[in-house]
């Protein structure tokens, strides 16, 4: 079910990306720099790894910056691989729609919800919110009426 | 009484019959569809919901008759009339019994179909005038559909006209009296079996019924050409649709099922009295079948329907007319 770490680092080396591969309860995750994300994904898909399906792309706000998660899957071998890429706030990452069209919506949503942008995305409009919404919603800095605030309002 | 008064009274009676028919048919449709679909249908307004449709008519009368600002003023008002009046004129030719008819033209069949061909013009006008994209698409579809199905409709009737030898509805019905081989009624459906099926399919398409209800396909165009209409203008169009239904079934019974004739009794006082009732029962059975089809079948796509008409129905009806003429000649000789 899990790809061997050695294979993963070999495939990533083939893509010329320096990556530290870790295995956790989630599975095998490789941390790469965001700038190289598009080419790494291309080689992982077309290369020997044959991760032909991108299950999900989303972002996590880690307090200092935005952590992208690419969840790839090789359908024949039923193996999952996670790529993590760090982008700072209002930063940008290369769009990967050429090799995984599935990211078309996911990138627009991640850009809109976390205040970043994807270079080369063909249709970089907002996906879920309208223009009146200025603050990037899913950032930890954007407040929500937390449980504590409502305890005694 | 002066002939002018007679004419006026007959037209008013025709209008009254049309409105009554419309009310009864709408109620019947809602009840039939309901019970076909395990539902109950209107049952609150009056006993078994009988006054539901008349209350609907009152509602339509009192509702605001709204016209969108960007709509084409005159065409918007003219369209419902151009849809309603032809189906009302077609009423006047139908013969309910040997003596009961509003006007008996010796070219009855031709008159009905000529008048009914105004309806697609009205629908296209409604679609265009309401200046909304969906209505325009609905109007265009209706035009394409009704023109495509006008031809097989007329061709399928030719067979009957050949058998009866005249276009007059009264003569057609009378020539269906009597029995073949002792028990078979001389209705034209027996010799004209294929002609009847062609007529049925074409009539379904003419009156915009499922599976041909392309112009007001609920799941695509909401109500198609009648999108922007409200109040009594919409009421006229709705009523016209149902009177078209009645007219096509009435013409179908006169041509194929021997109008007001019962196989058993001919030409005596009872037949004259029972005539209209027998006729109405036959027509309402035909209408029930159309509603039954409406509650069952899915909808054909517009291009499939047009290719079905031009590639299948018209060649078939042409061939049938020719073959039947040859057979008739041989039999008659």
């Amino acid at each position: 079910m899990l790809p061997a770490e050695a294979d993963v680092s070999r495939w990533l080396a083939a893509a010329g990306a320096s990556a530290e591969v870790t295995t956790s309860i989630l599975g095998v995750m490789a941390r790469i720099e965001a700038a190289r994300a598009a080419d790494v994904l291309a080689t992982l898909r077309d290369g020997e790894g044959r991760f032909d399906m991108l299950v999900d792309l989303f972002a996590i706000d880690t307090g200092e910056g935005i952590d992208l998660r690419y969840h790839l899957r090789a359908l024949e071998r039923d193996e999952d691989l996670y790529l993590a890429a760090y982008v700072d706030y209002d930063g940008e990452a290369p769009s990967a729609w050429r090799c995984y069209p599935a990211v078309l919506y996911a990138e627009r949503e991640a850009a809109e919800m976390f205040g970043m942008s994807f270079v080369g995305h063909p249709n970089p409009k907002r996906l879920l919110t309208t223009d009146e919404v200025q603050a990037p919603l899913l950032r930890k800095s954007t407040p929500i009426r937390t449980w504590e605030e409502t305890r005694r309002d | 009484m002066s002939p002018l008064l007679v004419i006026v009274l007959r037209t008013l009676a025709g209008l009254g019959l049309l409105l009554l028919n419309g009310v009864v048919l709408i109620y019947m449709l809602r009840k039939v569809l309901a019970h076909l679909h395990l539902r109950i249908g209107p049952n609150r307004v009056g006993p078994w919901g009988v006054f539901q449709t008349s209350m609907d008519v009152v509602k339509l009368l009192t509702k605001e008759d709204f016209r969108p600002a960007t709509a084409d003023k005159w065409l918007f008002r003219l369209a419902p009339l151009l849809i309603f009046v032809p189906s009302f004129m077609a009423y006047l030719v139908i013969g309910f019994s040997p003596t009961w008819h509003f006007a008996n033209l010796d070219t009855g069949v031709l008159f009905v179909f000529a008048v009914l061909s105004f309806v697609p013009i009205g629908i296209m006008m409604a679609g265009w005038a309401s200046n909304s994209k969906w209505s325009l698409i609905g109007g265009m579809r209706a035009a394409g559909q009704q023109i495509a199905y006008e031809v097989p409709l007329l061709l399928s009737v030719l067979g009957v006209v050949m058998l009866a030898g005249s276009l007059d509805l009264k003569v057609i019905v009378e020539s269906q009296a009597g029995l073949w081989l002792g028990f078979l009624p001389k209705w034209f459906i027996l010799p004209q079996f294929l002609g009847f099926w062609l007529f049925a399919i074409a009539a379904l398409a003419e009156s915009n019924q499922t599976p041909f209800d392309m112009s007001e396909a609920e799941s695509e165009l909401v109500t198609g050409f009648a999108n922007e209409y409200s109040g009594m203008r919409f009421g006229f169009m709705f009523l016209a649709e149902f009177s078209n239904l009645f007219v096509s079934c009435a013409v179908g019974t006169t041509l194929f099922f021997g109008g007001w004739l019962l196989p058993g009794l001919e030409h005596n006082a009872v037949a004259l009295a029972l005539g209209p009732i027998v006729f109405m029962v036959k027509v309402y059975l035909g209408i029930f079948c159309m509603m039954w089809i409406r509650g069952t079948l899915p909808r054909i796509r517009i291009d499939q329907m047009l290719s079905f008409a031009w590639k299948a129905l018209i060649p078939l009806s042409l061939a049938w007319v020719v073959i039947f003429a040859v057979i008739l000649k041989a039999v008659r000789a």
Partner: protein
Amino acid sequence: MTDDRLRVTSEGPIVAEGRREPLLLPRGLRRVPRGVDELATEHLIVNMGPQHPSTHGVLHILLELDGETVMAAEASLGYLHRGIEKLAESRRHHQVGTLLDRADYVSGIHTELAYAMAVERLMEIEVPEKAQWLRTLMAEINRIASHVLFVGTFGMDTGSMPTFLYTMREREALVDILEAVTGSRMMFNYVRPGGVTGDLPGGIIEKLETFLSTVDTYLDEYDVLLTDNEIFGPRTKGVGVIDRTTAIAFGMTGAPLRATGMDWDVRKVRPYAAYAQLDFDVPLGSQGDCFDRYVVKTAEIRQSLEMIRQLIAGVPEGEYTAKVPRVLRPPAGEVYTAVESPRGELGIHLVSDGSDLPYRMRLRSPAYYNLAVVDEALAGGLIADAVVTLGSLDIVLGEIDR
């Protein structure tokens, strides 16, 4: 997939050869250059939705029409966006279930189950066998209720009214059973980390048996009404074809992927709850058109009925929930658990920082990725095809907009 079939928008035509310039908002009507011989025809830009009878929810699709044929389509979403992922970050782990019912409101049990499994994997909670049995039974009942709703609305999209009303009869029976067990017809709040909130009350097995005895005849009737119908066939066969490479490229899962012949069902590939002990097969299609998606879903209903019969046969004993601390505080870490919801693979990617509130919860929603292909699938067909293709993808907007 890097052939130029999929060069999208601003750098060139969207997809198929027939496509000209892409559809970008806002845009005026484009005129075809008035060549000497060419008629000056304009493309009609039409809004299908968000208030439209066949968009299955608040979905707004911009269609660029040339006459009746759809040249370009673009979905604009967000009408049902409630910020479920943001809300989840201020809720305790056992309260997140109430949010997730409202994401995919037609199959709430699957979403709750995915989240509960995520927390259980993080905290290594061992769920008792009776709880797994209950979860599987409720998930399959919920799946049939959702598939039956699909059959009804898909029939309605092609114009056949009766199927919709007959399927309501099935759905009503199933939803009553769900209400009796969980307490609510659609917003179940039934599956919690550690197990479920209640055992089967009395009489449920009998109710299920009466339902199972009559449902097969009704399913055969739907086949007569739709599958073998001479009008339904041409309306759906060869319409909205999505081949395997496109489906995989767009991350589609569930019936649209299995309709292309790809054997991928999370219940088989990564069994969870009690699916390992059940034997059922995964129906597959071949062309990946609307008809195959419909046939795959109706076959799945029959498989689910088979599973329920096997489940009812052997009712295990035991507790319906594990001993779970009142305040769940999973250790820091990340986990992804996937469930086969009626629309496809529904996954919860849970990031926990050790506190009792989830740090980040990502709902991988199948309909979100099944819908992304709409720009490709609708191009080239007629409006009637667009409606049927959209219906065949069986999307639920609550899950797409979150």
